[in-house]
């Protein structure tokens, strides 16, 4: 097949790639053909017929969006026939879309914000549409340049507007039924929360049974809004605002690294986030956190001045005063008594300066990211493979024939990571295996859902390894070439016969075997793991077992394969890369290695502390024990629960860099105003190792400072050299010079797009797959699997474990949606699933009303259903819609910061008398 097809559009010679349609080739070549239903990135649909063209030698007028290009084709898009058809189609369309302004004779004279008094009815004006000035329909009609005579009768639909669902409004009076939203929901997101309803002139978009989005399975990702060409779908916040300018940046709300366009209005408010279709980490997709969770950047509560505690009260102070107080306060605590916790949203520059500050100014290695409570995610990987990050790339998951997801609520915590998995599963039937005691969204797509007793995940993966070796399904060539220790592994698995594994985990042997066969045979395969609800003492063993599984199946170092540790903090990956970790200097040089310390110390002109640092978990413990006395915390963190706050308030000196006066800031000795991501300039490194720029969208007051600048000033005030940075690019230059994996990167390079490290030199295009050239000099050492430990005892008063679940839709469940203060809420009795033996012990029958009481004091009312699979484990599955309503109603300044997770907790069941 030729690489290029040459053809002609309106006399212009155009080159196209094979398989492209006329419209795609025309768009690439910059030739304008109007279109409404086509959207780049989705399959051609052929409904709007605005893109009709004539092809020489062909019949009629084919739609250019569905007609593939053929060599030497002669396409004409401006013949009288095409023009007449285009006008006919648009006139028909206008008969059901408010178009007063479009057909007004004064349109050329009218300014964009004018309110006219006489020419057009109020309800038909474009200026009363939330999409005014960014409406594709209007642009199309104007570009086509037809005069609107409109012989057809105009009919306003007069439908009520849906404003009761969370986050976005739906006004189907403006809908042109192009079905872009329906297709985005189906093709791109795999949700099918919205669909076409009715047919003929009555056809419209809606939900399948006319239900609220809360019930229909909407994940509130906003993909439909981004593709809507008219004002039918719009975000509710800042609905009517117009953008003054826009900026491409990286989403600060999770580690996936989605690229998006931030629209900013003339009052410097971030009004809208639109997924960037060129973003390699997200392919245009965002999620509820990125789309509807960035308003914190605009909040009036933002701190504008430093606060210093005087006489027990925090009072405003100048930077100079605040820095003096900090310098004095920190001086007695140099060394191991000092710890610094970076924010999950700290940029690489922030994190780099933070660790440099802690090490050179304060002489302490206790520097970490505040969300980094599961370092085992990566440490386990580093032990066996020597890498400290995901070995593959997110969108290569589209090509993975099997994906194993272990204890991760991917759809909620790393939403866009789940998109390629769902797409691949729905398009090509690629296999999904989920290991999780909880019912999460991906379990609905899973070909196999293994639901082990909580705490027995290691034994389960061990069982899969055993089944795999028993049936001799391993990739023998790969194991022979690249692994050692197969004998030890096999020997360790001798304890794990499947009968025993079934006894321990509660997962049937047949399912374990099936999982082993599936994962071994469907290659390439990828493993995603977040270690949710895995006890800290089991985490390393579980990661080792998963790496064993990847190695035995040869799924390391190949495209579409690999291991993906799903870290929770947005820039945890980058923070570790640049040395913001207790045991690593920049570039993963071990702190314990004297040569490494010397090397880095030389570059910094300082001598580095050798005492091992504390990670975030140990810092909190150290605070409680009094070993840690001064703590500096950057930003709020989802992991700051009451217990953590309690520990942090025991510090003798606490410095907090914050956007808002958070619970933590209220406990501080000094609070420094921190600029938000929208005011920052820097870079994030996503969990697939992609280094991407964070660009400034709105200006900051002089007092609102990024952490790197605040720390640099503090260092200078404390008389330490080496912190004379002018801008973040300079910081990045310094860290890149120090780190081989970042050496080829600079802010200038990143301004052209993200790059996956390692990128050792300037011309290097980045590395999508780690270990592609083999496992280095040595072989990977397979780690034996420990024999299963006795499961943790639950407290006697709370004998059962609750595995909470959350899914997008539960069509089988009756529910009611009620309107509370103008917003839809799901109202229903939850169902608690329990094992018949537990039910018998408690004297509970199906249908009884129970109260589920947790140690925390939380109580949930639920109807008993005796469908539980495991004795001792109960589960309640709620709807994502319920969570969305909660988030919509939240009054927290940063509503997506603390999205309630799904934690397995000990509970007890109590019967409630029927009311």
């Amino acid at each position, binding site marked *: 097949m030729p690489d290029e097809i040459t053809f002609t559009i309106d006399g212009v010679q155009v080159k196209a790639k094979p398989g492209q349609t006329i419209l795609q080739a025309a768009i690439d070549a910059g030739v304008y053909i109007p279109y409404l239903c086509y959207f780049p990135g989705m399959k*051609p*649909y*052929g*409904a*709007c*017929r*605005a893109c*009709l063209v004539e092809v020489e030698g062909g019949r*009629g*007028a084919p*739609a250019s*969006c*569905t*007609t*593939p290009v053929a060599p030497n084709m002669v396409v004409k898009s401006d013949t009288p*026939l095409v023009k*007449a*058809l285009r006008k*006919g*189609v648009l006139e*028909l*369309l206008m*008969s*059901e879309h408010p178009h007063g302004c479009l057909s007004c004779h004064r349109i050329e004279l009218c300014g964009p914000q004018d309110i006219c008094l006489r020419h057009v009815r109020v309800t038909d004006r474009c200026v009363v549409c939330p999409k005014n000035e960014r409406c594709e329909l209007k642009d199309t009609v104007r570009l086509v340049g037809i005069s609107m005579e409109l*012989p*057809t*009768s105009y*009919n306003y*639909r*007069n*439908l*009520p507007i*849906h404003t009761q669902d969370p986050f976005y409004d739906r006004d*189907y009076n403006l809908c*042109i*039924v192009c*079905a872009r939203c329906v297709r985005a929901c189906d093709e791109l997101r795999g949700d099918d929360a919205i*669909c*076409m*309803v*009715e*047919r*003929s*002139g*009555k*056809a*419209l978009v*809606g*939900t399948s*049974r*006319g*239900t*609220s989005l809360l019930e229909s399975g909407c994940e509130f990702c906003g993909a439909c809004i981004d593709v809507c060409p008219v004002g039918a779908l719009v975000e509710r916040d800042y609905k009517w605002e117009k953008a003054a300018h826009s900026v491409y940046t990286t989403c600060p709300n999770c580690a996936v690294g989605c690229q998006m366009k931030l629209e900013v209005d003339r009052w410097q408010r971030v009004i809208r986030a639109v997924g960037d279709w060129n973003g390699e980490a997200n392919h245009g997709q965002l999620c509820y956190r990125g789309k509807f969770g960035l308003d914190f950047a605009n909040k009036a509560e933002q701190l504008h001045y430093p606060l210093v505690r005087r006489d027990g009260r925090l009072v405003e102070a100048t930077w100079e005063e605040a820095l003096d107080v900090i310098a004095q306060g920190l001086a007695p605590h140099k060394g191991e008594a000092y710890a610094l916790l970076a924010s999950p949203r700290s940029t690489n520059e922030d994190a780099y300066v933070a660790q440099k500050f802690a090490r050179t100014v304060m002489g302490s290695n206790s520097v970490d990211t505040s969300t980094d409570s599961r370092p085992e995610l990566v440490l386990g990987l580093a032990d066996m493979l020597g890498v400290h990050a995901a070995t593959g790339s997110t969108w290569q998951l589209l090509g993975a024939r099997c994906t194993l997801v272990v204890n991760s609520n991917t759809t909620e915590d790393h939403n866009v990571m789940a998109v390629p998995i769902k797409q691949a599963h729905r398009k090509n039937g690629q296999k999904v295996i989920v290991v999780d005691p909880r019912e999460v969204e991906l379990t609905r797509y899973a070909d196999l859902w293994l639901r082990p007793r909580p705490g027995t995940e290691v034994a389960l993966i061990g069982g899969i390894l055993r089944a795999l070796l028993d049936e001799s399904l391993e990739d023998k060539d790969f194991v022979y070439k690249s692994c050692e220790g197969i004998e030890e592994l096999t020997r360790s698995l001798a304890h794990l016969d499947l009968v025993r594994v079934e006894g321990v985990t509660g997962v049937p042997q047949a399912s374990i075997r099936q999982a082993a066969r599936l994962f071994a045979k469907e290659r390439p395969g990828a493993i995603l793991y977040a270690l949710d609800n895995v006890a800290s003492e089991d985490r390393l063993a579980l990661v080792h077992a998963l790496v064993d599984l990847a190695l035995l199946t040869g799924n390391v170092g190949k495209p579409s394969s690999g291991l993906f540790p799903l870290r929770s903090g947005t820039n945890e990956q980058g923070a570790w890369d640049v040395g913001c970790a207790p045991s690593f200097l920049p570039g993963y040089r071990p702190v314990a290695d004297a040569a490494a310390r010397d090397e880095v110390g030389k570059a910094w002109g300082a001598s580095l502390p050798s005492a091992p640092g504390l990670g975030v978990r140990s810092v909190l413990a150290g605070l409680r024990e009094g070993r840690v006395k001064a703590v500096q915390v950057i930003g709020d963190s989802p992991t700051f629960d009451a217990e953590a706050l309690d520990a942090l308030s025991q510090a003798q000196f606490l410095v907090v860099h914050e956007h808002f006066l958070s619970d933590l800031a209220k406990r501080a000795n000094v609070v420094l105003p921190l600029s938000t991501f929208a005011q920052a300039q820097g870079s994030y490194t996503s969990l697939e190792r992609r280094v991407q720029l964070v660009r400034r969208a709105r200006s900051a007051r002089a007092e609102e400072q990024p952490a790197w600048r605040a720390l640099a000033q503090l260092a200078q005030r404390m008389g330490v050299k080496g912190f004379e940075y002018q801008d973040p690019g300079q910081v990045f230059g310094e860290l890149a010079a120090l780190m081989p994996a970042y050496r080829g990167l600079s802010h200038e390079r990143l301004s052209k797009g993200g790059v996956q490290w390692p990128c050792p030199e300037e011309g290097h295009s980045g590395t999508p797959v780690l270990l592609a050239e083999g496992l280095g000099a040595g072989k990977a050492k397979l780690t034996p699997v420990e024999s299963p430990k006795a499961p943790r005892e639950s407290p006697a008063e709370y004998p059962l474990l609750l595995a909470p679940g959350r899914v997008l839709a539960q069509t089988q469940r009756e529910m009611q*949606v009620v309107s509370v203060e103008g917003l839809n809420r799901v109202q229903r009795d939850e169902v608690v699933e329990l094992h018949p033996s537990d039910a018998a012990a408690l004297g509970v029958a199906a249908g009884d009303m129970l109260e589920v009481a947790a140690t925390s004091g939380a109580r949930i009312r639920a109807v008993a259903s005796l469908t539980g699979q495991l004795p001792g484990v109960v589960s309640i599955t709620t709807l994502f819609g319920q969570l969305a309503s909660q988030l919509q109603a939240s009054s927290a300044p940063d509503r997506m910061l603390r999205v309630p997770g799904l934690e397995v907790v000990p509970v007890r069941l109590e019967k409630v008398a029927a009311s």
Partner: protein
Amino acid sequence: MANTYDALASEARKRWEGLEKGPQPWIRVGTAICGKAAGALETLEALKAELGRRDINAVISQVGCLGLCFAEPLVDITKPGHPRVFLKNVTPEVVPALVESYLAGDRPDPGLALGTLGGNIPGVPSLEDLPQWKRQVRVATRNCGTIDPGDIHHYIAHGGFAGLARALTEMQPPQVLQEVTQSGLRGRGGAAFPTGTKWSFLARSNVSPKYILVNCEEGDPGAFNDKGILESDPFTLIEGCIIAGYATGASHGYVFIRHGHEGPIHLTRQAIAQARSLGLVGQNILGSKFSFEMDVVLTGESYVSGEETALMEAMEGKRAMPRSRPPFPAAVGLWGKPSNINNVKTISYVPEIIARGAKWFAGIGTEKSKGTAIICFSGAIKYPGMYEVPFGLTIRQVVEEIGGGVPGGKQLKLLQTGGPLGGVLGAAKLDTVLDFDAMASAGAILGSGGIIVGDETVCAVDLTRNLVAFCQFESCGKCFPCRLGMTHLLEVLERIIAGEGRPADLELMKAIGQTMAVGSLCGHGQLGFNPVQSGLQAFAEDYKMHLEQKRCPTGACNRLFHKPTRTRPVASGGWYARRDYVHH
């Protein structure tokens, strides 16, 4: 152990002779949907009761539809030593008299007797002499009304599966393909595309699996020949489908039937099961290396799901909306695999073509339209029914000789042919030859074969409104020209009928029509203007009178009789009245 065809055939013939030449009278009652509607089941019960009361031994079979709708309920009786006698309009009331006269006695009541086949009975005409019968050349419907659609042996006894046996044993797939191509068979679904050519597209693909799809959506009002064939002789379709699979290398056949066509669904499923039990469907058919699976798939009620790509969408469980072409189904069809889709009628010709040869089939009909047309008559016609006639007759011959003309001494005003998307022919076009191309140039299409006759009391505008209302209601709502164009056409016609037409309305309809005809995604929109266009051509006077004098020539368009159709989304009523659409 596979049955050889000869063994099957001799077994079947033995069974058939046991019935036809047996010692007892054999009574066949037509209980297809047309018979049932006329009360055939009550007749059947009455017959059984009467025979029981009189203690007469007889074999009673339920057969399909002979095509003579005007004669339903139709009973035919074969007595030992007598020819087969057809008795018309046998309602339960006349059953005792019938039994008395012909089963107890020997003289069929001349008032009931329609005709005989295979011999004479004094006082009863021969069926062959009836114009409704003698003009017919029954190929696809050859067994209809004769065999029991629930017994595969009846079909085999009539030469069934001989074509398949010939194809499998004597011919290679390319030869079968060539035979079909040479026969000149064209698709009976409406587009009249040459079947052999269509099959060759599929045969050329080397992707596997390939599918043969059979379309029995049959949503055209006034068309009932697909259902008629499936309810009377589903085996001929099955045989044709297997031959098509053999010729094209397909491995699966799916018969797609509209939900609610209960008779065809049940009988086709049963027929497939019977064929499978005899080794005629499944692995290694008739001991050959060829394997072919078949199944029945149901669709929701939507006219557009009869469009080939919409049908595939529906089969995949999606909303029945047409796909855009290219890619064509022969490359990317059902589940993304190469597929061929034919109408029931088209496939039903294939067994006879293979069994009797392309030459024989090509000898019937006109130069470009080979074979026969299966016409469904309804409306203002004396003898409504399903008649298989050779191409080349004029429409006048068909209407007047077979259909018996317009009853009640009224004048024929128009013919509505080929379903609602077909068109309206005025009486002036009666001498058009029955031929795909001649019909098209006359401004209508033969389409699925339905012909609805309108007499002088029919208002052309009202009829057009009726057709457009159907097309509008059935538009799937995908492409803009059809979704909106149909809606506007209907709204304009409704206002013309209500006496509120505007002078520019005809021009407006033409403009919309052009956008639809060229701009629409599928045939529904492309042909959607046909009823208006052909009506405007033939009955411009009617429109003029409605527009200028604000009155209807026939009085049919009285605004009191018309409630405007709901064509747009509204906030109350229907789907939109769900609780989510609450005004606030």
